[in-house]
């Protein structure tokens, strides 16, 4: 009995998923009703996933082509400025008013303007993703660098680490925990902005795939697009966690 409850608790996640899947099967395979076609069966969706595999892969590729460059640029700029502003008081004072004002602006309100001033949809989507990722990365990095324990600073000073070297050798490494929480929030937001931008005006990418089939009431393909988006995001997040664990191994005891 004890081992049974132990296993139940261990596999409860999978069991609950199966339970939801069961409900889904019941709804989609039950007696005919009006909006039946809104709930395609798991089988129909698996078929859609398989039949549209090329298009789904292409969509994922197109989305990543927007996401990765924008996110990388946002990370490099956000982390660099964040480290300097967290370590040098006058830089922090200089940037505080603008970041206080601009950071809370939801990035999607920039979309119309970005489309108006930038020559291509691609550039406006990457710009929006950049904005979405930049602020959390910058703010978290700056906060982390500003809160570096005094002991690391004193230590660096005693062994003769200069001001410039301090920034990358100590501040950058010591702030890694905050940097990673910023990167993770930024990643989530940039996914949201990516798909929002694609629903709006793009003609490629995962958001576009979902919007396109919704417009044609092809719900098996639409749901397949949603599931596929989930899988892609999950894969990227897992990769992210892997890198994070590798780089933050030293925080175990602290």
């Amino acid at each position, binding site marked *: 009995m004890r081992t049974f409850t132990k296993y139940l608790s261990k596999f409860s996640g999978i069991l609950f998923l199966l339970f939801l899947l069961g409900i889904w099967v019941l709804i989609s395979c039950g007696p005919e009703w009006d909006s039946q076609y809104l709930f395609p069966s798991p089988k129909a969706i698996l078929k859609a996933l398989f039949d549209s595999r090329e298009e789904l892969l292409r969509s994922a590729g197109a989305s990543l082509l927007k996401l990765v460059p924008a996110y990388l640029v946002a990370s490099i700029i956000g982390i660099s400025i964040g480290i300097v502003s967290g370590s040098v008081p006058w830089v922090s004072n200089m940037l505080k008013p603008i970041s206080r004002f601009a950071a809370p602006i939801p990035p999607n309100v920039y979309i119309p303007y970005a489309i108006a001033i930038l020559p291509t949809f691609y550039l406006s989507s990457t710009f929006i993703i950049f904005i979405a990722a930049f602020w959390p990365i910058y703010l978290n990095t700056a906060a982390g660098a500003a809160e570096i324990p005094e002991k690391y600073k004193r230590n660096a000073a005693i*062994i003769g680490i200069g001001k410039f070297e301090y920034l990358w050798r100590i501040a950058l*490494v010591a702030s890694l925990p905050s940097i990673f929480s910023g990167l993770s929030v930024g990643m989530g937001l940039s996914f949201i902005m990516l798909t929002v931008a694609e629903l709006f005006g793009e003609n490629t990418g995962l958001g576009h795939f979902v919007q396109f089939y919704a417009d044609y009431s092809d719900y098996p393909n639409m749901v397949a697009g949603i599931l596929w988006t989930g899988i892609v995001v999950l894969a990227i997040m897992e990769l992210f966690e892997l890198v994070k664990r590798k780089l933050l191994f030293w925080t175990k005891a*602290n």
Partner: protein
Amino acid sequence: MTTKQNGFETTNLGFSYDGRAILKDINLKINQGEFVCLLGESGSGKTTLLNLLAGLTKPSEGHVYWKGKEIEKPSAERSVVFQDYTLFPWLTLLQNVTLAIKKTKKLKTSYAKNLAEEYLNLVGLSGSLHKYPFELSGGMRQRGAIARALSVSADALLLDEPFGALDPVNRASLQDLVLELCRGVKDRPITTLFVTHDIREAVYLGSRIIVLGSTPGRIIADIPLDFPVKKNRGEWFRNEKVQETIATIEDAYHKDILEKLGHIVQGGASI
């Protein structure tokens, strides 16, 4: 008779923070090669004084000198070991010490690494060179911190309650290590300031004891020590002279505390 050269010197040294005087009128001379234990209760400004001597803090009043020159910034000449383990947690022991040597001596990495290994051997850590601080016990981390402090060829070692967080066994063995490293070297005397609030530790280690009274921190006793060689810890502590010294320091302590509490104590009061 060795010539006594000036190590640290402070003149009318004072430090205040937020308008509160932490240290006041500290006039102190520490010769090179002396092992000074700085005693005082919490809040007496022991750590502040150490930071001032290290150059980590700037005085509000007065001056601090090292070898006749005013101290302006931290230097590897005056190495510090803090109570909270200050090895960089993202570097192994060997990398920590190598970095310190490389930065202070401008050596090539391979040389610095060899030297770092020697210093880590010296403190008994040859088996843990590639371990990270989080994999080590408190005592081992503190050994690493001492190795790093010594590895930069410091002339002065400033230790801020370095063994405060250790268990008695580790504590005793690290005390002996520090004694051996700082007082054992004849050709290169290391000037040591050891901050502690443990009277027995101070008496065991020091060649001189300075007691700070609190609010504001000021020197209330300055006692030179000259005890026989320490061979057996237990026996040594039973020595009459040692016990007398401990009693004297305790008196100075109590007197200061009672005065602060508003009691008027006159000439060896009975408690």
